[in-house]
């Protein structure tokens, strides 16, 4: 890990890569903490949003950038946009969170606690990739396989089926092959599957 840090340090600081990709300056943050105060999940986070900003700001300490990248926070972020709406410096924190997630994925540095969340996202996108739309039934089965939470919501599915909310067969989009190509050129091209 050490050597890896040095590589990162030698190239470009994480904050600068984020800036380049999103145009959002974490450096504007002056640590007022208003984002953390309003974040619905700050209490569950290892580093509430204001601290993520500070980890990025201290670019001369690559180990701090690493902490941001490996944080549980970036995966807990719900993109509810409340931090951005209230930030006195108008920092688009949700966009920074997006960029950090992408970076963590590409560098294989996803926090282990985020595995369920990630499994859900992957199951979701797999469903979209194959059918063009979300096939809820398929996704849930896929998610269960990935997360190994087989018993979760055992009672929910039959009820959904009963009230007509769950279809057993997916709807398929005609432009599926194009969607396949879009996935191939985007997510699949960049992601290193674990």
């Amino acid at each position, binding site marked *: 890990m050490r050597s890896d840090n040095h590589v990162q340090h030698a190239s470009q600081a994480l904050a600068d890569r984020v800036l380049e990709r999103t145009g959002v300056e974490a450096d504007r943050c002056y640590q007022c903490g208003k984002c953390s105060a*309003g974040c619905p999940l700050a209490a569950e986070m290892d580093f509430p*949003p*204001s601290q993520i900003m500070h980890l990025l700001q201290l670019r001369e300490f690559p180990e701090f950038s690493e902490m941001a990248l490996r944080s549980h926070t970036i995966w807990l972020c719900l993109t509810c946009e409340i931090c951005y709406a209230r930030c*006195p410096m108008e920092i688009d924190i949700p966009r920074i969170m997006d960029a950090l997630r992408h970076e963590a994925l590409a560098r294989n540095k996803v926090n282990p606690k985020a595995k369920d969340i990630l499994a859900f996202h992957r199951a979701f996108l797999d469903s979209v990739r194959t059918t063009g739309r979300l096939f809820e039934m398929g996704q849930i089965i896929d998610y269960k396989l990935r997360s190994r939470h087989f018993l979760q919501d055992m009672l929910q599915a039959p009820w959904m089926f009963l009230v007509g909310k769950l279809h057993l067969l997916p709807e398929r989009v005609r432009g599926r092959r194009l969607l396949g190509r879009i996935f191939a050129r985007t997510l699949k091209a960049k992601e290193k599957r674990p």
Partner: protein
Amino acid sequence: MARIGVFICHCGENISATVDVKKVAAAASRIPGVAHSVEYKYMCSDPGQQMIKNAVREKNLTGVVVAACSPRMHEPTFRRACAEAGLNPFLCEMANIREHCSWVHEKSDATTNKAIDIVRTLVAKVKKNKALLPIKVPVTKTALVLGGGIAGIQASLDIANAGHKVILVEKQPSIGGHMSQLSETFPTLDCSQCILTPRMVEVAQHPNITLHSYSELESLDGFIGNFKARIRKKARSLDEKLCTGCGLCTQKCPTRKIASEFDAGLGLRPAIYVPFPQAVPNKPVIDREHCTYYLKGKCRLCEKICPTQAIRFDQEDEILEVEVGAVVLATGFDIKHGDFFPEYGYGKYKDVIDGLQFERLASASGPTLGEMRRPSDGRVPETVVFVACAGSRDPAKGIEYCSKICCMYTAKHAMLYKHKVHHGRPYVFYMDIRAGGKMYEEFVRRAQEVDGVQYIRGRVSRIYERGGKLVVKGADTLLGARPMEIEADLVVLATAGVANAGAEELAQKVHVSYDPYYFYSEAHPKLRPVETNTAGIFLAGACQAPKDIPESVAQASGAAAKVAGLFSQSELVREPLIAVVDRQAPPLYSTCVGCFLCQAACPYQAIEKEEIRGRDGRLIKTVAKVNPGLCQGCGTCVALCRSKSIDIQGFSHEQVYAEVLALLNRGESDV
């Protein structure tokens, strides 16, 4: 033909150690137009000056060049010497062969040659110098002070005590400003009104001060020493001379439920009112927007009961014209109002109040008579949250700058609350504590250590009401930015200090510049903090930037000292190094074509339009004219003028052109 005298100084050995002064004197004597050239050990000594004086008289010199130290050092000395010998002082120039030559180069021919170059350059310049007379501007020794808060009061009293007349104009019905609304003042916790009201009374009684309350500046023309101001005295609906201030009308007025401005909306007042009991002047005013008579055409109760028949419903605004020599702007500040913080519920929840409202709650003269009770239900608040930086340092919803006074008054508020509600729990959410000032840090420490105010470092995200409590959602960034919630009974926002709503309009009326936040700009951020860029207009107090009381008072006294200095002579004498626009005989009148590109460039609004008219009054042309009272002599207009119709005395086109040529062309004087 020019007869120039050149006087070369050895400056002990400071010059002669590296420059061959004899050679310089010899070279100078060969410069065409030089009638006299000598060197001497100490030119600035009495014998040295005497040499110059003698030579001026004996050799009938038309110009003098003293080759010695920097003109920034001794130019006044030598110009005075010339003047004493009967030569116009502006015909004397200094060639700086010490700081710019002997001290910075080694002893060599090159150094001596450079000294000769410098002398030749200044000789060329002085040949083109013209005799100039100092500019004299008459001064009207009356000051106009705009704004009757503590800064305006202090400035008025200081100027008046220096023996000059003051016209003090206050927009509100009474002087006193924001300070009169405050409860106690930091860091001493003395009662604001106790220290302010004696000053207010002094203003009212001072023989040198004319107070126009409930009045506003209508316009200001003229320049330093010679301003003409028009003041609008708004109709009070009252004959002030007859009114004794008995207060009967204010007691009997049937319209009583108007939010009191003085109590920051927390108390009520009648339609005819005196803003507060200690008001100066203690004469009521009718609020025509709420008075039943003005709204519905009947009532006139006050008129009927007034024992001196002082009520005048048909009174109209009056315009006064006054002549003043100086203006002090002391128009103060305001706090940011309105619902600019929807997430804090300011304006929505009655128990979310601003700092000024808290002052009224804490004030013994306030709507609760000093008892700590919250606005919604009058209960004593058990938990109070103070939010610092509510709008300050907040480019998104408020202002970018730090309002400076909030850290201190928030500590004071928390303290006052704790003193009044001993079992109460005060919390302060803050970002940084800025307590630079005499006894300020100690004061904040006292709030924390002695009074047990809980300081939490973080900004509040949201405030909402739940079951009669205000839920304050914050985080402590010193504890890992963990979110926290406090159920408060009262929330006090330290709302940002901002410029007055009318600040921009007033600045344009009096031609002073202002910053992007509409605070007035000082002439120099460090060295001329009480002057504006318009000569004769000075600044005092929070109209320049948010300030606390001691700072406002200090600046007011500074402004007063500037005014008193200006008024110390009946004429303002200035060096004539100013720009002038060319004037010619008819039919040209001036080479100026009146494009006025110079006007926008002038930092001092010194360029005016002059209409040249024929005998029949017909407009012949409009040309630029430099107001000698305002011009400071920077010469920006000179370099901008295409037709070279503006020139600057002392650095004229001819002078600087001659310098360039002389510096680069070594003539016969060359060695």
